[in-house]
């Protein structure tokens, strides 16, 4: 589209199936996970010099979310260079920040495109941007919009006012569910390393090292590790509000213990998968330890944990996890020799 400063790309408000496929791949961490768009100024609809200017990150999903909300409206979108990271994370790192914002306003010659001096930033960008500093240094005024792009139109209609609810970050079931694939993909590297170690150790037995042992003990071990993996990286994150304790490590340990008990309890009813009670018992320590560790790492994806809180939690959780896992492994190996 033509403007006083030349051509400006127009983006469509409708997302295509390619956009959906791309974000699906990102969630599963397939291929590149940083999904970038070039920084700069974009037009949605047919904006004029009076249209609002919305600021976002150059993470493609951030831009997609914003533009799809703006269907049927006219606006400018200024995309900052956040190295392909979403608004909240980039603000935390400072790339969605005061300096980049001021610099980008200059580079896209925003003063020549619009006659007003108002920017609308996503509220979650406030962690990296100092509104009064931007105004002091550039003369542009910042209004923080709602947390969710879905509330944007309501916010604009209300005269750029957000309700307290629009300002709240929640962590509802849906959000926790869409993070599951990412969590599983990220944790799978731990799973792989641990699984290889367990398979190697499975061969050890009172009769020496045997391939038969690897098959028998190894396959049981893989089952238990998979249980820990899903308990810690998928089930506990999804069930978060209904699990005991504020600490994530406790929530994970709880689900891990339940999962191990469910599998092992089949042995009490009759011949099950374990032929050695010590081996079965060792998993009651190891599964909770692994699940606890994985769920503890989920603090990074959650939207309400503080650094001080995480430090406090790790202070008691990490020694407990290491302790339980170590005792578990020792019992697991030694049990075969008794």
């Amino acid at each position, binding site marked *: 589209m033509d403007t006083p400063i030349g051509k400006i790309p127009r983006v469509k408000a409708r997302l295509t199936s390619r956009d959906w496929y791309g974000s699906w791949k990102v969630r599963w961490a397939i291929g590149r996970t940083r999904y970038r768009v070039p920084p700069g100024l974009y037009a949605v609809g047919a904006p004029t010099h009076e249209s609002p200017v919305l600021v976002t990150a150059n993470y493609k999903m951030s831009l997609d979310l914003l533009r799809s909300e703006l269907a049927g409206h006219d606006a400018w979108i200024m995309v900052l260079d956040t190295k392909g990271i979403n608004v909240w994370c980039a603000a935390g790192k400072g790339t969605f920040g005061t300096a980049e914002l001021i610099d980008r306003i200059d580079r896209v010659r925003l003063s020549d495109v619009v006659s007003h001096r108002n920017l609308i930033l996503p509220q979650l960008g406030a962690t990296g941007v100092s*509104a009064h500093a931007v105004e002091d240094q550039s003369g542009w005024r910042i209004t923080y919009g709602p947390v969710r792009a879905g509330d944007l139109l309501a916010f604009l209609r209300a005269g750029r006012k957000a309700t307290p609810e629009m300002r709240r970050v929640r962590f509802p079931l849906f959000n926790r569910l869409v993070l599951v694939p990412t969590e599983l993909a990220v944790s799978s590297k731990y799973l792989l390393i641990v699984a290889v170690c367990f398979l190697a150790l499975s061969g050890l037995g009172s009769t020496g090292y045997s391939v038969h042992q690897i098959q028998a003990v190894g396959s049981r071990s893989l089952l238990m590790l998979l249980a820990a993996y899903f308990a810690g990286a998928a089930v506990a994150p999804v069930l978060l509000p209904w699990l005991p304790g504020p600490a994530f490590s406790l929530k994970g340990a709880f689900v891990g213990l339940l999962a191990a008990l469910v599998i092992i309890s089949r042995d009490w009813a009759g011949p099950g998968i374990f032929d050695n009670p010590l081996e079965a018992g060792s998993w009651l320590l190891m599964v909770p330890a692994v699940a606890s560790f994985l769920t503890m*790492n989920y603090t990074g994806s959650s939207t309400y944990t*503080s650094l001080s809180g*995480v430090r406090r939690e790790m202070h008691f959780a990490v020694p407990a996890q290491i302790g339980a896992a170590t005792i578990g492994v020792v019992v697991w190996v030694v049990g075969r020799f008794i």
Partner: protein
Amino acid sequence: MFGLRYLTHVVTLELDEQKCNGCRMCVEVCPHAVFEIVEKRAKIIDRDACMECGACAMNCPEGALVVNAGVGCATAVITGAIRGTEPTCDCAADPDCC
């Protein structure tokens, strides 16, 4: 919100009510409704809900707010400990993980 509360009595947030001019900025930027304006001054009404994101301190024009901001992420704390730095969120694989 039921169930989704993190550990209590750990947060580093400090408000100097003497410096506050009641501009409401902290109320606007805080994602966890930690503040309220009472008699034209900011007041901390839900300290334990603070996630130490630092948005309020960053946007308080009077410098009335101080918080030890950082990412509440165990992976970042581990990465930081291994590298001997502050908690750092370079878990490069994951755009949703800060």
